[in-house]
């Protein structure tokens, strides 16, 4: 089993990881003038104005208490739904008729008893998105969602101010997508086998934008967006397109059914399974045969997409936090809340069947490891926020949560080298580090990087950087004896890391 102890120590403070070449991670001083390349972006946190929200705590300070009970009830119904209404009636028992306050008190108690089975139902929808989103510390992050287009060189970035920008190296001005319903974006994803459709998971609904790639418009009208909503299905925290581009599944932690949308026809089929109390995270396997659906409870499901039946996988400790599929869809890696390990499940590639391993195997140990650096000890490890596997199946990036309070336990991106064939292997590669003080929040691999893999990382200071990994794919015949393909642009400021040993031994 691979563990963090085999990793090379993190870089000293002030060093930035640039790329991987010749089996080494190359870094540079951050104080030097950086050339981040054309697609590196910077969104300072200060420049983005978040949508103003009504805080629950400040509600009492602004409400006029001279209003009648009915008006207040109506307001709280609008703001907080049924529970808010009942609370309002119970709180003002002097004004309300006695039978009303008593009965609403009973109903409220009953509701609370029921919802204590699923504690996540008590969260407000903002907090729920923050809790279940794949982004680390979502509510305070300048970049809330990021998605590469599966076929072309463009990506969409959802920002704190509820706008989405689409960047394309060929055009200078990125189109900005704004919509009245586009609030609290939790996830964006481009439709495969399509140039223009972008699905956005919002607080109240699901939006599918059709952004004409040839159009020069900077601000596409909201008429370009299709609104998909279903009663009781909000907030939407995760979406996944089928790799064949025909279906879209969406999940909400509040709704026990996950929706399978036929987007063009705007029709949906709810797939309901009550256990778990909702669906938080979805991931469609690249071969299209399986869908991982995590729930807020210690339970996740793996759906088979031909007849839409599912396997239940109860976990011991906590909910499934993140997961990713191998490129051929035969292996699922996932992490559990409260456990610092990566599990693996295998599935046979016969479509329509769910025969696979009977139990998940632990493939990597990410327990806390102390590295001694010149600046002091750094503790790396712990729970995992996000897993990402590159489309060739050769690099696995793991976003470790760290501890936001402790300076010595930062959030970190650890990268493994992986091989799926003939046997599954995980080898340490290294840590990806950004500017001093910046923590990684979100990451995604480029879907078709020609020279290996490219990891895009969104940092807490609002910067988006791309870290290429130059390597020859194991499936492709090697031209030379060893080494990486030539890098497209010359790199001068290479820092020699020759004193670190290369990890070639098998550690599984």
């Amino acid at each position, binding site marked *: 089993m691979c563990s963090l102890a085999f990793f090379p120590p993190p870089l000293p403070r002030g060093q930035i990881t640039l790329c991987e070449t010749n089996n080494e991670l190359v870094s540079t001083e951050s104080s030097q003038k950086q050339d981040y390349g054309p697609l590196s972006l910077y969104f300072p946190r200060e420049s983005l104005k978040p949508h103003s929200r009504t805080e629950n705590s400040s509600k009492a300070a602004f409400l006029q208490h001279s209003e009648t009970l009915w008006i207040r009830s109506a307001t709280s119904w609008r703001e907080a739904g049924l529970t808010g209404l009942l609370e309002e009636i119970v709180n003002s028992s002097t004004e309300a008729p006695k039978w009303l306050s008593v009965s609403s008190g009973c109903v409220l108690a009953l509701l609370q008893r029921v919802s204590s089975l699923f504690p996540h139902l008590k969260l407000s929808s903002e907090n729920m998105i923050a809790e279940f989103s794949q982004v680390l510390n979502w509510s305070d992050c300048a970049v809330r969602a990021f998605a590469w287009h599966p076929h072309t060189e463009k990506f969409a970035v959802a920002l704190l101010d509820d706008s989405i920008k689409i960047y394309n190296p060929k055009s200078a001005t990125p189109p900005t997508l704004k919509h009245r319903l586009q609030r609290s974006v939790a996830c964006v994803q481009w439709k495969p086998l399509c140039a*223009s459709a972008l699905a956005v998971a919002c607080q109240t609904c699901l939006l599918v934008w059709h952004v004409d790639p040839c159009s020069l418009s900077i601000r596409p009208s909201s008429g370009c967006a299709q609104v998909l909503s279903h009663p009781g299905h909000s907030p939407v925290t995760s979406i996944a397109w089928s790799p064949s581009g025909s*279906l879209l599944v969406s999940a909400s932690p509040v709704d026990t059914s996950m929706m399978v949308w036929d987007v063009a026809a*705007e029709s949906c089929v709810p797939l309901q399974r009550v256990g778990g109390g909702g669906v938080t995270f979805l991931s469609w396997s690249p071969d299209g045969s399986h869908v991982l659906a995590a729930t807020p409870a210690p339970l996740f499901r793996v759906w088979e997409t031909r007849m839409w039946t599912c396997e239940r996988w109860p976990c011991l400790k906590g909910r499934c936090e993140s997961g990713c599929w191998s490129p051929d869809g035969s292996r699922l890696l996932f992490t559990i809340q409260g456990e610092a390990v990566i599990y693996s499940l295998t599935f046979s590639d016969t479509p329509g069947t769910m025969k696979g391993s009977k139990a998940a195997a632990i493939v990597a140990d990410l327990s806390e490891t102390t590295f001694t650096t010149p600046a002091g000890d750094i503790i790396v490890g712990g729970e995992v926020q996000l897993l990402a596997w590159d489309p060739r199946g050769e690099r696995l990036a793991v976003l470790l949560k760290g501890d936001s309070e402790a300076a010595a336990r930062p959030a970190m991106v650890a990268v493994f080298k992986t091989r799926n064939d003939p046997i599954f292997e995980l080898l340490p590669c290294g840590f990806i580090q950004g500017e001093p003080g910046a923590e990684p929040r979100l990451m995604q691999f480029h879907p078709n990087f020609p020279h290996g893999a490219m990891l895009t990382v969104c940092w807490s200071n609002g910067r988006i950087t791309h870290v290429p990994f130059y390597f020859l794919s194991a499936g492709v015949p090697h031209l030379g004896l060893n080494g990486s393909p030539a890098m497209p642009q010359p790199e001068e400021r290479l820092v020699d890391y020759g004193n670190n040993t290369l990890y070639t031994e098998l550690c599984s």
Partner: protein
Amino acid sequence: MFSAEQSCWFVRKVVCWRAAASIAWAVLLLPPVTALFVVLSRVSLFHPIQWITECLSILTSASTMFSFVLLCGVVVVVGYFNLEYYTVTPSIACSKIALLAQLLHPRQFVHSLVHCIMGVIVAWCCAITIGPRYQNFASLCTLADGDPQLCLNEYHLVLVLFGAFVGYSHSLFGVMHNMNYVPFHAVQQYKYLRFKGNLPLVVKCSAIQSLYFTRNYLGVYFFLGYIPRSWLCNTLSLQLNSSLHPLDSVAGLLDLSMLYHLWISGTFLLLTWYLTVLLFRVFVTEVYNFPVQATFAEQANRCLPKVLPGQQPMILKFLALQDLALLSQHSPSRRVQVFSLSQPGGHPHNWNAISSECLSLLADLTQRLVAHHETVAINGRAKLHSAGSDKKSISTDSSGLSMTQDISTPRSSGVIHTPVSVFLRSSVASAAQNPLTAPFTPDLDSPFSSPALRRLAPHLEPTSPWSDTVQSPHIMRRGPKLWSASTDSQTSGSLSPSPSSALSPHPAVSKPSPLAQFLHNRKEQVKHFLARRVLIMYLFNKLPEASSQALFADSQSHIWALEGLSHLVAASFSEDKFGVVQTTLPSILGIMLVLQEAVDRHFKLPHASSKPLRSACSMGDCTYKTLRFALRATLKTAIYRITTTFGQHLNAIKMSAEHRKRLQQFLEYKE
């Protein structure tokens, strides 16, 4: 006849059994639904024990058993009507008058009548179970002078008439909302799960629908209720109980317990019927696995390549296409059979049959779209003009022979008929003959547009984009710009392979005789006169976007054909050992690109791209209203699937410059 035998086989062996199974399940579901109805209809919160014992005694009584047998009979009859009246392609009325014609059709009349009677039977059963107030048709009552007499029990009458009303309204709504349309879902699920998923919706629908029917019924009874009552009193010489309010008064109708009983009886009636409909849909749309290659000779007629080209029954074609789309995605072993060569001979018969059928389906759709576009385009112009300007210039440009001509198989003239054939039958052929049939055509402008405009049209013509002087269908077939052609509406129906038959209508039209001119003018005058009458305008005006919907009514088959073809082509990149797909790849791409252009053009028409309103809650599935959007998305995805798989290899394919340009757009992800 070969196909007749085949259809017999499928209907006899599969569809009938599926329908029978669905009816059996509906009958099995009847006891719990009835029990629930009994419990709810006698609800009394303040005497719970009495309530439960009463319910138990009713459920075990002989009269309930008898009415239960009746209800089973009703369910069987309703299930039989589902089987007889179902359709996989909805019939869409393009104007009010067409809808009216559908409603007055004899077939529909039988449907309504039978449902009316069924409604009466169900309501009578309800009256028996609900209780003493409704139970009997007549009751003893004391009149003013003191002697007991037989009186009419009006509550019973109201309930039984309500059953008839709901039965008739159900039948009526069935036509208006296409309840006999059997939709296919994009997501495959097992039957039980699909039924379970739809059950809450059905319960909700029947409750809400029953509420609306009750409201309407009360209105009708308030005004017309005295007719059946007095008629019954006279014929059966019954008395009216004068001590009670007559029920066609406000005070009589505002009886809350009666309203509740009416509503719950209506809900019960609709629920049992809707459950039958739901079960029928679930069973009949279940995937059927057709073998790709027959193992035994007697099964040869039942394998996919033989079944696909068949015309009748439609359900067979749809299920075969669905199976094709699924096998192309999910089962590599069956794909191998599709790509295999015949033994002996080495011909790819399976692939040829499948691909040519799919391509002819797509070509047929293209042709329909082109024809529709033409009707719309010439609608505002003088129709005579087409005859005058017909120059019959047949270019000899045979080098640019297009894909359309290559694949137009001999069958292509009669490929798929929409059952109403709103479009095929009446639009193109008879639009010019009868002013009253004009509204049936799915064009968008009013057929009664001003003649002045029409006279202006010839002058406008040269500047319009439609002024290409290509008129013959021959040339129309030449280039990828199919609709740039003939203004003569008659040619649009034929992409037929023989040029002689295509040219035949021309000599007749090309000489406008004075008589024809005169008749045309008279026709215009009549139209103009009729157009000013409000009622006629109301009946004959086009319903917006109905023509678009009618055009794409059977597009589910095209969607499957596109999915099946594109997945097979994409899979052939790695799985096709003999290269059988490569021979047809140019024509597949050509057809898809032509269709793409036609669909793009269609969506530029007014109303074509407007989304239909979401209907709140009805059993009639309205997925057919959005089929055109689904088709557009599937078409794009299908082309992208091929271009993404083949990439730059596509440059080696021979195709026209225009197609290559379009394909390049797809290769660069700019569509």
